[in-house]
């Protein structure tokens, strides 16, 4: 098997060390390791992290291959430093059967850029009425453990309760897209001062918070684990904090864009800023950062949502919701969390690799950078600053809100089980 020596890398932001990869495994971590028989990558003080794990990705295949495929999406993931992504179930057909989740799983394995762990739908067709065959998806080759109707909320309290209970039998978790549907009919953006002025339908914070409050109480009642997708408001943070203090088994994620952007950007009426849940206020952004730092929010997940150009090159109301995020996530986290002093690189590894892997039970991912562990690694040039140019994206779609924005950090290398998927910023 081939050997690679990463020389002088700051593992999790610590003192420079050498890391030797042999085959698919980290062979040794130390100083002055022998380069004999190994290809050498001079890290020169770059930060080495465990391969990132995204618990919330839309790969669009099957059904919307015009916006992304498993191949283009996993290439984007590798570019962004990811070695595992969880693919959301809102494909066409919906990933609500063993057949669909196995297809997505196999495509990821075949392409080899990034492990793809399918998420199964909670209900048939994401319609919120009838439980999908959760057990069959778990027992399939894809081994699904995370279930979500993402894009839609499991709003029926009884269906949610049953799902929370049912997946306990095989250690699954339900990831809730918290959005009370009646309160968000016609919703186009965060409800507040800006929506009042722009005349766009409001998406009130309470529509998210009320569902989270209900679901943590349901999880407590039935003794289940619940995961909250893309938490976006200061009030949601307070509820999750309260739930954790009560010992409720809840985890939560935040997207990079909710850590950086606010609804003031909607004044441009440019649908590149249209996303669900919507961009909120400065106060929410600050509360989310603080919650990610103190652990109330467990992880960063991208909600990478590719859309073709025509679905964004139109009037706001007609535009699709969502942003691509895999290739900019780490930079945004560096900008909002590391460069602000809220989180160190070990903290980033925790929020973007260790914990998401644990929540999603991604075997072999989110492991420490130490001898004997799988060589899923990413090397980051944290001193870099550059302007985001979507033309260089590996994703098939370009709907990034960061075009032209200067952001820090650049992933230069990614290894998936010892095989380089990204070398010097170029996909292999």
């Amino acid at each position, binding site marked *: 098997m081939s050997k690679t020596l990463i020389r002088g890398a700051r593992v999790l932001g610590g003192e420079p060390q050498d890391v030797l990869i042999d085959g698919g495994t980290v062979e040794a971590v130390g100083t002055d390791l022998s380069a004999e028989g190994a290809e050498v990558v001079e890290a020169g003080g770059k930060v080495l992290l465990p391969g990132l794990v995204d618990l919330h990705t839309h790969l669009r295949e099957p059904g919307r291959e015009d916006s992304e495929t498993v191949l283009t999406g996993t290439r984007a993931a590798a570019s962004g430093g990811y070695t595992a992504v969880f693919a959301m179930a809102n494909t066409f057909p919906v990933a609500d059967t063993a057949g669909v989740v196995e297809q997505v799983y196999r495509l990821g394995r075949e392409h080899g850029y990034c492990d793809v762990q399918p998420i199964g739908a909670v209900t048939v067709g994401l319609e919120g009425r009838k439980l999908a065959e959760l057990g069959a998806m778990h027992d399939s080759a894809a081994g699904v453990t995370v279930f979500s109707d993402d894009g839609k909320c499991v709003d029926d309290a009884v269906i949610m309760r049953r799902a929370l209970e049912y997946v306990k039998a095989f250690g699954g978790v339900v990831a809730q897209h918290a959005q009370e549907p009646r309160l968000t009919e016609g919703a186009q953006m965060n409800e507040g001062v800006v929506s009042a002025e722009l*005349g*766009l339908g409001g998406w009130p914070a309470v529509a998210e918070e009320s569902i989270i409050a209900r679901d943590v109480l349901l999880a407590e009642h039935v003794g289940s684990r619940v995961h909250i997708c893309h938490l976006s408001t200061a009030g949601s943070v307070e509820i999750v904090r309260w739930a954790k203090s009560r010992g409720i088994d809840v985890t939560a994620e935040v997207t990079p864009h909710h850590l950086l952007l606010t609804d003031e950007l909607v004044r441009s009426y440019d649908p590149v800023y249209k996303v669900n849940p919507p961009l909120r206020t400065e106060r929410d952004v600050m509360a989310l950062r603080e919650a990610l730092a103190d652990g109330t929010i467990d992880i960063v997940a991208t909600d990478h949502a590719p859309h073709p150009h025509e679905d964004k090159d139109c009037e706001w109301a*007609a535009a699709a919701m969502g942003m691509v995020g895999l290739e900019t996530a780490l930079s945004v986290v560096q900008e909002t969390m590391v460069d602000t002093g809220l989180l160190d690189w070990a903290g980033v590894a925790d929020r973007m690799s260790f914990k998401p892997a644990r929540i999603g039970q991604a075997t072999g991912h989110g492991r420490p950078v130490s001898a004997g562990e799988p060589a899923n690694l990413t090397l980051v040039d944290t001193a870099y600053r550059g302007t985001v140019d979507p033309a260089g994206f590996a994703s098939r779609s370009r709907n990034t809100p960061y075009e032209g924005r200067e952001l820090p950090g650049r992933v230069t290398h990614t290894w998936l089980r010892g095989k380089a998927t990204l070398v010097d910023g170029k996909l292999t």
Partner: protein
Amino acid sequence: MQRHLISAADLTRDDAVLILDTAEEMARVADRPIKKLPTLRGRTVVNLFFEDSTRTRISFEAAEKRLSADVINFSAKGSSVSKGESLKDTAQTLEAMGVDAVVIRHGASGAPYRLATSGWIDAAVINAGDGTHQHPTQALLDAFTMRRRLVGRDTGLGQDLAGKRITIVGDVLHSRVARSNVDLLHTLGAEVTLVAPPTLLPVGASAWPCEISYDLDAVLPKSDAVMMLRVQRERMNAAFFPTEREYSRRYGLDGDRMARMPEDAIVMHPGPMVRGMEITAEVADSGRCTAIEQVANGVSIRMAVLYLLLGGNEPAVTQSRTTDSRTTEEK
């Protein structure tokens, strides 16, 4: 405000006063036997209406024709999406036919702004109402009507509406007229009060430059003008208020309420009126109601806006479009 008219909030006080003064000049044309100016001869204006609005479309059309523009009416009912063609393609198709200005009415808030700022077309864009966002020519014609009635047709020239107390009553939540009026009236120095049931006021309206009240009777004696907004009966079914009758009792303007207004105060309505809902026939048909005058003034205001954006020698607004075929003003 640049070379487009997208939002009443983009107008400075001087922009707005110039438009009102110009509209007075235009109004004199309407008093002539031949109601026509050659100002926009050879210029093409398209009225691009994605929503039905016969009265606004006809008002713009009358204004365009009185300025001798070539007029194209394009009615694209329903959204661009349901039609299958995008707003971008529709606009570019029209521009390819040589259009100098696009007057757009669209159900989506922000559609005119997108049209003006996305690089899709070069033509000047005039917002004729977008979703629940803005309807700037409506606000201008309302301000014009108020200035005439409350300040005076001749004495009003060069003046704003400083100190005038304007009350806007009704479905503010779904109203682009209310938003445009709050912006423009504030710019013109008026004191605005919005009156509505709390359900029909947007969350966030507290940040607007106006007062908010839930009590119409308390506000009426302190109003120089009371603008009644249309309330669609369907709102009842979405629980914005319990019944039509309850709405009328609490927020409708009838003769008794009108009697509580100061003697010279006027009643305004942007139309179409729902008689018996927000306004009784007695009030609508009284001499204090300016609804019909507003329609007439709408043509003058739209002439003024088109003239200043496309043809004026002394533009109210900077015009970045460099056209060498600008026709000279002949009056």
